[in-house]
């Protein structure tokens, strides 16, 4: 299980770095835009003119003019979707993809139980996703705390 965990992390390393950088850049972009968005003329009026359903769909848009409300709408709502694309694709490929390509035949002939194999890969996957989220989140929050 440990061997499979390490192997999977090694395999995902490149993708994880690329996604982290992307998310950090996205966070920095949003951060730098905060002031200009807040200074836009009539932003509150614009928000009020939207139907309730739309506001509910994007979640807490009424508070968009506060820093956390802004992040909530622009960052945390979207990041679910962005990370979701990565998560579903990677997770499916890790086991089903390898199975379909015929890679698992030889791997499972080695002294590793099927549950050990499964949990090893799943743990590595969870670890990588958490790492991406924590890194990109810290890069967003730590600088903004520092500037406050």
């Amino acid at each position, binding site marked *: 299980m440990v061997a499979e965990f390490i192997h999977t992390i090694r395999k995902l390393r490149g993708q994880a770095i690329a996604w982290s950088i992307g998310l950090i850049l996205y966070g920095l972009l949003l951060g730098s835009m905060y002031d200009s968005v807040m200074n836009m003329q009539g932003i509150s009026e614009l928000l009020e003119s939207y139907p309730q359903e739309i506001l509910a769909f994007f979640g807490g848009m009424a508070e968009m003019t506060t820093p956390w409300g802004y992040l909530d709408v622009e960052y945390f709502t979207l990041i679910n979707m962005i990370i979701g694309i990565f998560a579903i694709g990677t997770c499916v490929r890790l086991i089903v993809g390898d199975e379909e390509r015929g890679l698992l*035949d*030889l791997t499972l002939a080695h002294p590793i139980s099927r549950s050990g194999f499964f949990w090893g890969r799943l743990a590595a996957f969870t670890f990588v996703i958490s790492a991406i989220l924590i890194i990109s989140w810290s890069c967003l929050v730590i600088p903004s705390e520092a500037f406050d």
Partner: protein
Amino acid sequence: MVDQAAIIIKDLHKYYGKIHALRGVDLEVKRGQIFGFLGPNGAGKTTTIRCMLDHIRPQKGSIEILGMDPQKQPVDVQSQIGYLPGEIIFPENDKVIDVLRYFADLRQNRVDWDFTRSITEKLELDQKMPVKNLSKGNKQKLGIVQALMPRTKILLLDEPTAGLDPLMQHVVYGLLKDAKADGTTVFFSSHIISEVEAIADKVAIIRKGVIAEKINPSRLTSMSMRKIRVQFMKKVDLSAFSKIEGVKIINERNGVDVTLHVEGEIDKLIKTLAVFPVRNLETLNSSLEETFLTYYKDSKTEVR
């Protein structure tokens, strides 16, 4: 314990849906033997091997490997087995050495790296090559290296020389004989008669999901069938040939171009041919399936 068999398979049945792939396979492989598992495509060789690894489960019958049941102790059984699949696929982006390291890690790194390096060199496989740049033969070599690398007590090899040129085939035969000298039991499948004859101590022939015969490899030549084409310089009377035992004329053109089936020893045919003006003589490859068809059609009662 010394006399205990390495592999015992009893009355193994496997269905794929309605297809009855194994119809009661019985096998016993002694420790330290090179055991050839011969059979045409689709006879059940790979299915039997996959049952031994607990990759698929038979509906009926039992398997014992070094006294263990693969269904009850799969990990213990797998740790004693070096396996080469018939269809081999590796992650395309990895280098040869990365693939070997990964498989070694799956065995808690219980691998003799000096030995691994020496067999990689014997097979002329470059460890730094990425898998995607390897030819089919080189991928096969990588498969052989990863199977031999942990020096397990048992080797299960599904068509080990597939895709290799004759020179490399002989290197592989040498490696298998070395493994035998170390006390390893080698179980390999093949559909090439000459290969089994060259290295096996014992042969089982599987056909349509049952073991048709368990024999010593020396008997393979006498039961094998050749297809021979003879071209004469002028028209000859062919009746002399059809009288020879084991020879059958399967095709002839104008009495000058004849194709013959020859079962067993070729001696009598050569002696008969000697009196005729022969322009050309060639042995055509006949598949194992052809050999089987002829052998079992003609000598059903003779099967020992």
